[in-house]
């Protein structure tokens, strides 16, 4: 063990200092710019680059241009949250039912549906957005550009999350629990509802959080399928004004979205751990990455 201090010079892989340096450097590079942007949302002046003192001016202090008083910023925030909630409420039940159904149904149709599901997960978003835009503008459907079209697009793009997460969980549960329930007299549907569904709860909560956080960050689909500026959510607002002399109110808007997403994740993770502990399935934060 001689030369402990110089040992890593000769064998850099002995202790992964280089890997530590890369990881720490990456984290700084990845998070510091965002922290700077958050910091400048509290700037007292109009600049997003020169610090002029701390204030809440761009959140509610300024009577015209703060997030609270500027109607267009306010509307964007409300639209983002509305889309997040509606989409999550539709996507999660639809995706969970699809996952349970595909898990119990074997044949060409279900395996084709499974392939389509996975395709919807990896297709470049712009392709789906343009295709749905063509549908809404060329086919007589009871869906108009605006909230309804946006929700349809988002549900289509997000449905794979709950489906994939729940299928992965189903694979680890196996069939013995519902067989036991049915031996004890439950109907197939009762077995799903009273035995399988509770066991799936951690995966369902995780996918709900994933869908919500992903939807409030979505940009491509919601932009093409928004009717007019009244249904443009936060991300579109940022895109439209980022290069056109914005005030720190834009940073404040982005910061509010960030806080919302973080709150959703922390809350979801707490629920996830709580349910997981009760059902004896204690997953780490890794289950929250969407990688089943």
């Amino acid at each position, binding site marked *: 063990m001689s030369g402990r201090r110089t040992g890593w010079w000769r064998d850099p892989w002995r202790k992964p200092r280089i890997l530590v340096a890369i990881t720490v450097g990456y984290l700084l590079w990845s998070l510091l710019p*965002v922290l700077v942007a958050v910091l400048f949302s509290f700037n007292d002046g109009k600049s997003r680059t020169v610090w002029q003192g701390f204030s809440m001016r761009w959140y509610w202090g300024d009577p015209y241009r703060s997030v609270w008083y500027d109607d267009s910023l306010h509307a964007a925030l409300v639209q983002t949250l509305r889309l997040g909630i509606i989409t999550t409420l539709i996507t999660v039940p639809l995706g969970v039912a699809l996952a*349970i159904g*595909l898990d119990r149904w074997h044949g060409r149709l*279900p395996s084709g549906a499974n392939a389509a599901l996975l395709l919807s997960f990896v297709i470049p978003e712009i392709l789906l957005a343009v295709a749905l835009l063509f549908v809404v503008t060329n086919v007589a459907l009871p869906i108009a550009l605006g909230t309804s079209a946006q929700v349809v697009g988002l549900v289509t793009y997000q449905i794979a999350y709950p489906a994939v997460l729940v299928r992965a969980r189903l694979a680890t549960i196996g069939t013995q629990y519902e067989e036991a329930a049915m031996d004890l007299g439950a109907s197939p549907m009762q077995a799903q509802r009273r035995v399988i569904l509770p066991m799936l709860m951690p995966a369902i909560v995780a996918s709900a959080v994933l869908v919500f956080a992903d939807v409030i960050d979505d940009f*491509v689909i919601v932009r093409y399928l928004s009717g007019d500026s009244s249904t443009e959510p936060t991300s579109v607002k940022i895109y439209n004004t980022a290069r056109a002399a914005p005030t720190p109110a834009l940073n404040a808007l982005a910061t509010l979205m960030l806080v919302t997403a973080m709150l959703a994740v922390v809350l979801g993770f707490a629920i996830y751990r709580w349910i997981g502990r009760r059902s004896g399935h204690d997953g780490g934060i890794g289950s929250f990455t969407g990688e089943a």
Partner: protein
Amino acid sequence: MSTEDRGNRFLGPVLALPGIVWLLVFFLAPLYVVLAVVFGGLDPIFRTAVPIWNPAYWDTTQMRYVLEHIVGPTGFFGPALLRTAVYVVTASLLCLVIAFPIAYYVARLAGRWRGLLLALLIAPFWISYMMRMLAWVNLLANDGLVNRILPGQVDWLSGRSEVVVLGLVYGYVPYMIIPLYAGLDRLPQSLVEAARDLGASRTSAFFRVTMPMCRPIVVASVLLTCLPMLGDYYTSDLLSGSPQTSMVGNLINETVLTPGQTGQAGAFVLLVLLVSLLPMIYYVRSVSRDEAGL
């Protein structure tokens, strides 16, 4: 399949049906609508697209127009397509170079720091892409921090390829780190230990055991990063805003809302779909194989 013998046979179809219908109506059928628009006509007065639903009457004018203007003297679409390929390949390789060591470290070596590191690595997932680009717009502005720290006044945000590629790397690296991490985390450590027991050095165990096992994980992660990048137009718009850095996504974005050019947008959509079809099928097949192996 004893479960299916007990009246469970209809449960699968009943539960799966709503989702399958949804995917049919809002995912597969729209792709056909794109075909009908691309091979459709134009309203002579309003310049709006007139889709032709019957393939027997399809009109190839719009598709030919796009294809004829890719190469040659009138090939004004060519440069953007080529640029897309160069940007996506460069950015993906840079992503891999950054992501692999980090994912490897966190998955195999980080020990008690793992939970915290993983949370920090996932954090960019919850920060909107637009916010992260906005952060760089602020930093790279003419009076921004970068220009004040570095010597010289550089106009970063007008048509610089390197800024757009770095923006892409910044934007998409998290999408590579997480699947890489998940894959590396699942690799059996015992094989590496066996190689070490049999006399391999750390380096040779890494290159001869770990690396070959990583190949499918690396391919899948690169695909997951490349595919969304192919449709990106906002990174170039925000970090450059110049046609000198436009990608195929920008071509789609500029034509789709222009009267008379929606068919062209559809044609670009078909081109991107064709290019991404093979990687997507590869991804679907590799995931399905994993599921079958569970």
